[in-house]
């Protein structure tokens, strides 16, 4: 299955400071995407691995094909857990030239991994130590000379060993609710930076493209944050953010564009570039906003709190839940409160907060039944399609499976995918 992938599996040994490209039959046989990731996790589980990977269709024009993942043992549960690589990080993971990357061991000194066009470089990260996620992202992009580099990074929370530490995708936090950021901190792995200028091959390019376009035409998710809020049963959340809303932003290849950029350091009506370098924050996940709204926060301080947590590299969902019952309004107080978060709250959504989804994190009850939610995650993480998009758009999964053959000569379906997860 050479198509849809670039390169072999990369093994990064942080103890030795080496990288090695290998090919494993058992990983190939396990299946694409997260199925391969789980096989690698199992193979290296004694080395406390973090597995970075992408799905079969990640980085293609298939609607919602933005998803990559980080897989590792959650310090919270001791069980394997995944964090989504959304926005452009999953696609760039695929284009970086490696289908899967296993980072094992821990480095004696801070490092970051620079994956570009199939070249793996372990770079000294001493000068990044102590930097927050925003500073880290800027520093790596400046050093490598390109603002489109995707930076999966850990913030000060990870360096301090906090179990609230979450990985961050560039500046914006992530859906990591398993404290995989803390694992990066333990490994002294400050960041994984990704960029590739290559292209993906399909076995049957014309057929693949035609079918992908058909799926796109049939995708029925409206643009913006509102459809997500409605699906969560919280339509007023969109209205709550509305006064600060500047624009919506899509993950790679997603027609939904549900991430919302809010401005609170500048008039959100200003559309042209201004001199204000940090006008606001991208609200890429509904959960933290929802917790703070439920706790009685005003929207602007809530967004400032989300920014402060993202900068620290703190799990936005658990952090917001812990903050939710003590609404603040002063920016300085918000920063201080974020710095002393203790991690007392579990991951979960305001509705059905105690229901865990195991490998995939907390289940979101209003969106779908438990079975549908689990299947969307399995399909999504194997094929590289955002599960939220799958559920909300109602995209035809049979159409998705039909893409696997022209993409990579792979015949698969719901039963095969269920089988990949035992």
């Amino acid at each position, binding site marked *: 299955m050479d198509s849809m992938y670039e390169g072999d599996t990369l093994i990064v040994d942080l103890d030795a400071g080496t990288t090695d490209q290998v090919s494993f039959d058992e990983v190939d046989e396990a299946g694409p995407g997260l199925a391969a990731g789980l096989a690698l996790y199992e193979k290296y589980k004694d080395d406390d691995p973090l597995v970075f990977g992408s799905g079969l269709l990640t980085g293609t024009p298939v609607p919602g094909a933005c998803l990559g993942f980080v897989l590792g043992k959650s310090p919270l549960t001791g069980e394997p857990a995944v964090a989504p690589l959304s926005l452009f990080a999953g696609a760039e993971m695929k284009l970086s030239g490696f289908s899967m990357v296993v980072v094992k061991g821990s480095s004696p000194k801070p490092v970051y991994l620079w994956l570009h*066009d*199939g*070249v793996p*470089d372990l770079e000294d990260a001493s000068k990044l130590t102590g930097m927050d996620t925003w500073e880290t992202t800027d520093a790596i992009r400046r050093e*490598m000379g390109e603002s489109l580099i995707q930076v999966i990074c850990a913030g000060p929370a990870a360096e301090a060993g906090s179990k609230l530490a979450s990985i961050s995708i560039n500046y914006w936090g992530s859906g990591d609710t398993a404290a995989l950021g803390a694992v990066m901190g333990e490994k002294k792995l400050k960041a994984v930076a990704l960029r590739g*200028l290559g292209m993906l091959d399909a076995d049957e390019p014309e057929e693949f493209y035609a079918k992908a376009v058909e799926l796109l035409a049939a995708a029925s998710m409206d643009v913006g944050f509102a459809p997500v809020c409605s699906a969560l049963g919280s339509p007023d959340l969109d209205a709550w953010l509305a006064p600060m809303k500047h624009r919506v932003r899509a993950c790679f290849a997603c027609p939904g564009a549900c991430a919302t950029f809010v401005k609170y350091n500048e008039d959100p009506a200003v559309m042209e570039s201004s001199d204000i370098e940090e006008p606001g924050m991208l609200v890429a996940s509904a959960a933290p906003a929802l917790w703070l709204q439920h706790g009685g926060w005003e929207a602007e301080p809530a967004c400032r709190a989300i920014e402060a947590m993202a900068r620290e590299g703190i799990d936005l969902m658990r952090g917001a839940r812990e903050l939710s019952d003590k609404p603040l309004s002063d920016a300085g107080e918000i920063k201080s409160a974020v710095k002393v978060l203790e991690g007392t709250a579990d991951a979960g959504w305001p509705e059905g907060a105690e229901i865990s989804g195991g490998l995939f994190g907390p289940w979101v009850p209003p969106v779908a039944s438990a079975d549908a939610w689990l299947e969307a995650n399995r399909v999504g993480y194997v094929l590289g399609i955002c599960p939220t998009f799958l559920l909300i758009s109602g995209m035809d999964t049979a159409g998705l499976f039909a893409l696997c053959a022209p993409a990579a000569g792979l015949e698969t379906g719901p039963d095969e995918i269920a089988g990949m997860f035992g």
Partner: protein
Amino acid sequence: MKGRTRRAAAHPAFERLKGDFLPDAPRVAIYCGDGASHSWIWFTDLLERLELFDVAFITHGDILARALDEFDILLVGGGDTYAMAGSLGREGARLIERFVTEGGLYHGSCAGAYLVLSGVDLEPFTPFSLVEGNMLNVMPDPPEPLCLAHKYLAPYGDEWVFHPVYGEVELVRGPAAEGFSAFGEAGALGAPLFGGPVLTIEDEQCILADYAGSTARAAFPWPREDADRLISGEQAVALRRLGDGTVLASGPHLEHPLFPRANELMAEAFAQHWAGRPRGTSQSRTQTPRTPAGSAPRGADGSLLEIKRQVSNARIVGFGLEKMPVTWQIGVKVWEPEKIRMFLDYTWDRLPYLDRAVGSGAPVPGGALEILAVGFSEVTGLAKTLKLKAESGQDSQAEALSLLTRLKELTASFLSLYFRLRLEERLGYDRPTLRD
């Protein structure tokens, strides 16, 4: 883009034309000296498609040092004609003319065509006169352009050379194309015109192709109908026998890798010249002793990885620069950031071959890979410095000149090594066949 290039390379004419250069293949020099812009690298695609691997990259200095004695074909692409002519001088003009009259083939595209027109009678061009003809796209006071202002004009004495259309134009058969199949049944083919001359050729028997108008795949500094009126029926490509040799002067870039029919026209002209060359002038390398197979030089793998690392890094920075509204004027030529990646892509796309060749024990000259690795590392540094300057709004002209000059040199060095290994493989040193 790469898919389109691959499809173009699969054009069936190349398979037929390869045979026209066997068993004795010509030795080809590509000019990459003063004034050459980036388009000389396009010649390498055509030569690969024709499996002409005996290729060298030469400068004005090499020509003045009589390097042309070693070659059968000289290819000169686009760029700054003033800089080319100025650096080659009268002696360079004399040596090129002697090269042709003694049996060589000169092909000039764009600047390489302006350079050899007899009607261009202005220093430093006066001594270069290989084709009896002139250019039409000159006037003292051209109208304001509708677009592409930065590419529209070049000074020419008291007048201006101007470019009314920029992109694909249609060419039709001229009298000198008798027996050529490139024009097909329709009698026409497309080729890109990027600032090349609209020719007036005195002897109609020397006309290989006329312009027939533009296509929709072009930009129009002039209104399209005015541009078409100016170029239609005028000459696009001249072919002249001079002494024992041949001169080709082409306004459009026939060598562009996305225009296989234009490539075919050029290759047919080469083949016709090669078939008609006086016996005894072939300087084929078929008698060259085979290079013994050996093991790759020590550290070759590490150097190759370093080349890959640095070319990747530099391409990424180059891509970053492409998002910035910045250009640089070097001589009379305007350079856009896209040109940085164009150079680097020619190395990047050929690295897998080099990797396999080294792995198969190809005879890589000692130190060649290390020198390239150091050079590309320097290029990455220069590209980053250039980007920082451009981002901060400072004048980055000097940095751009340093980077583009170094890139040109390194790309030529890399391609020299690449073609050398392809030639060695063709000549058959004792090791498994390489496939790319």
